């Protein structure tokens, strides 16, 4: 086992323990505990999904700068939700059963991601600058499109959409948790089973094809998994921007060797540690609700800069 996992696991457990039991009062402990456990589960699913999705995406695109979020995956998901509200109206949208709706949206995201990014990654993967530009443009396009459709809505519907377009760690969709959790867990298990092949995929097409890897098929499959994970995380708390970039670089920096069997768990665990620990710190200790998403980005951003300056991003 990679050395990093040996201390990431206890850190996650401590963070989870603190999150669950800190300041629990005798009066209504059962109710509070259940509430906290639900949120903890959601944070875990979100963190692990974002971490794993980002590592997977960077492996397919053989770079350490792009993330699904920068490429507009989550913006596309928000756009689909906004379009849903626009077409069905706020009551029609709310009347749809949460689980099946989520599965449908996920399927939509997978299809769109394969269509848009599959061709981009297939043979043009060597052309990184073009990929980055295209991705950033897609990201902006989806965000603006979602914003535009939002403007066309009436204020009540717009409020619903607004809520879906920003990360809110303190409000998760409890109804979606089983669906998103199950889907995300299966995707992560699948990715872990692919780990040795992902190591070869990470070498890049020129090297992996002569080694006999079915590169293009694996790249598409991996992109599909990324889409599923992004959909799960976004459905639960909304898009969370640069978080994935930070967590993926953390995973690469912490693990001793570039092996996905260690990279994927390391990314998932450091994401969970950051989210749960951060939420504990800000909500419980500092009583600053809703600031975590900002602070995570800031603190992580500083760490990212430090990594860059140490030359460990490659």
């Amino acid at each position: 086992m990679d050395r990093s996992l040996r201390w990431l696991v206890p850190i996650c457990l401590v963070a989870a323990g603190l999150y669950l039991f800190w300041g629990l009062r005798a009066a209504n402990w059962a109710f509070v505990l259940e509430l906290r456990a639900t949120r903890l589960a959601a944070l875990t699913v979100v963190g692990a999904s974002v971490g794993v999705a980002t590592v997977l995406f960077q492996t397919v695109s053989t770079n350490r700068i792009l993330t699904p979020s920068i490429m507009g995956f989550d913006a596309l998901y928000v756009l689909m939700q906004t379009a849903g509200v626009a077409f069905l109206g706020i009551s029609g949208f709310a009347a749809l059963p949460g689980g099946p709706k989520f599965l449908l949206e996920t399927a939509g995201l997978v299809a769109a991601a394969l269509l848009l990014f599959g061709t981009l990654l297939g043979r043009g993967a060597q052309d990184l600058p073009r990929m980055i530009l295209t991705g950033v443009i897609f990201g902006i396009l989806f965000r603006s499109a979602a914003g535009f459709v939002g403007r066309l809505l009436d204020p009540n519907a717009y409020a619903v959409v607004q809520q879906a377009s920003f990360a809110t760690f303190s409000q998760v969709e409890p109804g979606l948790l089983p669906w998103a959790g199950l889907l995300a867990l299966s995707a992560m298990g699948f990715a872990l089973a692919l780990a040795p092949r992902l190591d070869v995929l990470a070498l890049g097409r020129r090297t992996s094809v002569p080694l006999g890897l079915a590169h293009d098929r694996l790249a598409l499959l991996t992109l599909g998994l990324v889409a599923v994970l992004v959909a799960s995380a976004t459905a639960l708390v909304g898009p969370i921007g640069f978080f994935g970039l930070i967590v993926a670089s953390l995973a690469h920096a912490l693990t001793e060797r570039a092996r996905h069997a260690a990279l994927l768990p390391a990314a998932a665990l450091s994401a969970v540690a950051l989210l749960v620990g951060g939420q504990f710190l800000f909500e419980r200790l500092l009583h600053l609700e809703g600031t975590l998403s900002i602070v995570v980005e800031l603190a992580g951003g500083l760490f990212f800069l430090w990594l860059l300056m140490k030359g460990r991003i490659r």
Partner: protein
Amino acid sequence: MIELEGVGHRIDGAEILTDVTTRLPKGALTALIGPNGAGKSTLLSLIARLAPLGQGQIRVDGLDVARTPSRQLALKMAVLGQETAVGSRLRVHELVGFGRWPHHQGRRTPADAAAVEEAIAVFDLGPLADRFLDELSGGQRQRAFLAMTFAQGTDWLLLDEPLNNLDMAHARALLSRLNDLVRAGGRSVVVVMHDVNYAAAWADHILALKDGRIAAEGPPAEVLTTPILHRLYGIEMEVAEHRGRPLVLHHA
């Protein structure tokens, strides 16, 4: 034997390779020469199935490249591209280890470890084995990639400009090693190279490309002549003889 039949390739309508039909002999060192942009790398990448074959047929020891499972081909031929860069940040021994992937598919055996050790020793990488690739000089990195290709343990080795970045001593060491592989190991090697004198000294067979077509092919003494070299590179070169092999004098 690698058989090419009517191989053609177009990129955006531009003809890159036209009707390439030839045989690359087994158990021999073949030098692939030609001016920049002649199509050497493109031809190699078609044989290596890196690009889909638009026209014609390519068979490696009878295996049709377009139809044979990729893993089966990976056990038959190893390919080192012209640009050596990988996405991951790897140590030298990790990179060399990937050469064994076609054999173990993720479950390493002691035989794989031994093959990696051997490749590291053969390419003089022992002291560098634990260094990251990005902490090496260009020539050292080139040797690490060569060791990976060598560790694949295939009958065929296809190398695109492997002499780039190598100093004279390492270039000669590489060619002499490839020569050993051919003579003692019965392997077949195809090397893209620019220095025609290396081809003169070491190759059994030369394939010369120009503008996507075969310009000349045959043993060095037949290909490396003043008129053919003029046709290929557009400059006058005197060809002398040294120890029974051609020696091209390209001083103006």
